[in-house]
């Protein structure tokens, strides 16, 4: 299995094999992930979809090294991460992964600019000023850099989060319901940007969502149900995703 991964490692950003995650013990044990094997190609925008409780968020947490697994393995850019300790995982996250969460993405005590550069600072890396300017301009955050999060709208906050996720040029960006708290216009802006960062800037984005419209921005949709993979859709549209979900019984 690991031979296979390293074979295609150049084009595979993230890979999971036989991933198992169990919550609870004994009778009340729930297998949130029950042998999930899936690969995510570099330079593509993938959405993970599924009804509530399908295990999509758990999958993302395990892929990103935020949660430990009970079985199987995860590779990020060729590194097996399930055997890493907390310190190495933390380093991996700050060096090679970008995050955009649904809410509470920013530290209220820091300005937008400090929030964007936080990950780099933690890693002790100097920001690539040109790259920083590009991202800030694309996201239209130039005149918001000195503002604190409380002075920003929800959409602006999520765009700052996107900028932070991308500024370190990570191997992969994980987005967990990035538009869940936004109105449709702000949501569309954020999704447009994520898609653009993949197509124009060559980033890899993995997004968890339950919104078919959001999923339709991706290149590929991975469907989940009851801790298992339940299908894939390439070049999805809102309609094709919706019907696939209906099929799952969501």
């Amino acid at each position, binding site marked *: 299995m690991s031979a296979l991964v390293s074979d295609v490692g150049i084009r595979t950003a993230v890979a999971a094999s036989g991933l198992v995650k169990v919550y609870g013990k004994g009778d009340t044990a729930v297998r949130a992930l029950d042998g999930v094997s899936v690969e995510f190609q570099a330079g593509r925008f993938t959405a993970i979809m599924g009804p509530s409780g399908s295990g999509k968020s758990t999958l993302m947490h395990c892929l990103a090294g935020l949660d430990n697994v009970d079985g199987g393995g995860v590779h990020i850019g060729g590194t097996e991460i399930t055997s890493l300790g907390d310190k190495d995982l933390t380093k991996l996250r700050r060096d090679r992964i970008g995050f955009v969460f649904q*809410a509470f993405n920013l530290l209220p005590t820091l300005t937008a600019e400090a929030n964007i550069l936080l990950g780099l*600072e933690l890693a002790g890396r100097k920001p690539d000023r040109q790259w920083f300017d590009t991202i800030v301009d694309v996201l239209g955050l130039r005149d918001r850099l000195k503002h604190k999060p409380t002075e920003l709208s929800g959409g602006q906050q999520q765009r700052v989060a996107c900028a932070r996720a991308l500024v370190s040029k990570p191997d992969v960006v994980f987005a967990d319901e990035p538009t869940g708290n936004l109105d449709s216009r702000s949501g569309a802006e954020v999704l447009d940007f994520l898609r653009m960062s993949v197509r124009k800037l060559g980033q890899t984005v993995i997004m968890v969502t339950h919104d078919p419209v959001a999923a339709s921005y991706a290149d590929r949709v991975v469907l989940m149900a009851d801790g298992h993979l339940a299908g894939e859709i390439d070049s999805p549209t809102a309609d094709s995703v919706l019907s696939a979900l209906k099929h799952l019984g969501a």
Partner: protein
Amino acid sequence: MLRTIIAGLRARTARLVLSSVAIALGVAFVTGTLVLGDAMNASMRDEFAKSARGVDVSVYLSGGGGDVKGITPETLEKVRQAPGVAGADARAFQQVPLIATNGKAKPAFAVPLAATEELREYDLADGRYPSGVDEIAADVRTAETAKLSIGKTVTLLGKDDQKREYTLVGTYKQGVGEVSMSGNDHLVLTPEAYTAFNPERLPYQVVAVAADGFTQQQVADNVRKALGSDIYTVQTGEQLTEDTLRQVSSQSAQFTTFLLAFAAISLVVAAMVIYNTFTILVAQRTRELALMRCVGASRKQVFRGVLAEALVMGLAASVIGLLGGLGVSALLQKVIGGFGGGADAPVRVPVTATTVLVAFAVGVVVTVLAAVLPARKATRVAPVAALRSQLDSSEEVSRTGKLRVLFAVLLGVGGAGTILMGMRMEGEEAPMFVSGAGTMLLLAAVLVLGPLLVGPVNRVLGALPRALFGVPAKLASANAGRNPKRTAATTAALMIGVTVVAMVTVVANSAKETANAQVDQRLPADYTVTSSVYDRPLPVALAEQLAAVPEVAKVAPTTQLMGDRGYFTGVSKDALGDLFRPTVESGALGDLREGTIALNAGYAEEQGLAVGSTTTVKTGNGSQELKVVALISGQRLADGVVTLETSAKLDPVSDGYDSIMVKLEPGVANGRAAVEKITDASPLAVIDSAAETKAQLNEQLDKVLAFVWALIGLAVVIALFGIANTLTLSVLERTRESALLRALGLTKGQLRLMLVVESILMALMGAAIGLVLGVGFGWVITKALSSDTLELAVTIPFGQIGVMLAAAVVAAVLAAALPARRAARTSVVAGMAEA
């Protein structure tokens, strides 16, 4: 509503525990103090009762007895002969030098053995009481320290330094009386041996036992009739007991008041911790409170809900505090017992209804009062807040109004004005109290201004950790400054404690330095030889022997005169301006010769005397009219100075010197040994050098300072609980934020470091402002204490301040330990899921 409150308490137990500890500590201090006061009272009552036990009638010499100097044997006989008197004994005491194993005399008190058994103030421990003139009994403690055992010889130093030997026949335990309280050695002689020691010294009291069938009052009346003179105060035993106990109570009440002042500081600090806790809790529960309002709870119900929580907490804390207080009291008794040498005294823990009531009143009232403001804030939560998705407890951030500044300025101006007023006042106590009140107003001004100070102070203090630890410290600094009101309230508690500590330390050190400087001035000689026993002058021959030692350049003996209006020093004329050199205010010290006197400037003012006027000095043995030739100051001298010749005329009876100042030849290496060769032979002579006197003085002051540090230490401990508390609550509040930081790449270690630095910053903020205020206040108080005659030099103890800052940092690290552990343990995913 009740069910909601109980559920709320249960859910928030952990968060309330730390603040309960703060209140419990405060209550423990108060109850500990009260119990200690009661215990001291009870133990003193018991002990003092021994001096009044068995006494049915007591006869004292009243004041104004004219020439009568004590109770004569005839008087004693009259009392004995009075109808209804079964037995009577004279009570007396005198200082007798006891020769210790090293051949040196040390002061001990001797009392005559009462013939009537019921009238003895002591209980036989071992052996028997003396029955012959060459027998003696010793207090058990004296026997122990002087290494005396029954059958051994005890040597006392009689008049004219002749040694008298006695055989120890028994040991006894004494009760507490004016004599034994002094902690001196104590001996019992037969009345004959006692009188032989100093026949001129008469007893001060006669105590008598009533015969069967007589009441105390009857016997007292009979005795009064038998004495037939109104120069005696005749009391019944009951009256005597009452009188004695009244004195005792007022003494221990003073001590209790002193302790209660510190307990009050602890409580103020604890109240601030409680206030802060509830403010944070209310802020964190905005959504919950709003939901309750949504489902129909009235403002009043919300208010009462928060207060009820405080009430329960106060009750619980009071119970714990009360129990803790008993422990504190027992501990303090051990400590004090250790100081006073009464280590064998039993530890008592009397619990009175007052103590219990005060404990609950203080604990509950302080807690509930501290929760009133936060509870009011809770009522202002609008129901709509429940619907807002983002819970933001950055309550009232930085909205610090003009009103606050105005109020602070008013307090500041008032404080400064009061201080200035105090500084201009005359005397010692009044200016200190007025200036002290002024400093407290200034402290209040700084407390009010607190939230405005947090920002700048945090920026300054945060610079170093930011440079040292990078991002975690930067985040910590931002966190410490994010909610200025909360940070200010948290640090204020510590600030108060540190202010008081620093103030006391500065004043104590200034006093110490001043005292040391005075010792230098007072002991210009290399050595001063004094008598180890009060009232026992050094023999004149000693001065001559010392002068004959080749290493000694000069000796200057002094005498001491007790006048009717002050006490005076006699100095040899050739010592003036050399070994004896006070500051001359006016007149000339050179004019001091027979028939003249130099007066202490302060005394002269008191008596309305000036250079040129005459004053009559009268001692027990003589009197003379003296012309004032100089006013002197600067030395802690007697009220006036005369020459040795004048002194001898004023008191021809006593011969010998109070002290002998010794100046060595320049360059003498082993002067002390040379002086010792002479003084070793004399049992009374003790060598003092300026250095030794200073060391002794400093030791005493340091002990007092350590005691105050320990007392105020509790307030500081409570304040640190406050920091730990705030930090814990903040960590809970920031669970998601911590999870986000962890997700973004903050290691567990860095997260812990962040919280530790935040804790250190808060502690340093409190400590730094407290130190600045405390040192300033210490300066003010020291200046206020200074007067024309006693100039106190302000000394800032940088070493001790450094220790305090270091302690603050260490304590802050400890305070952050638990919250940091907790924050680091929370898994990222769990943290992200937290609402």
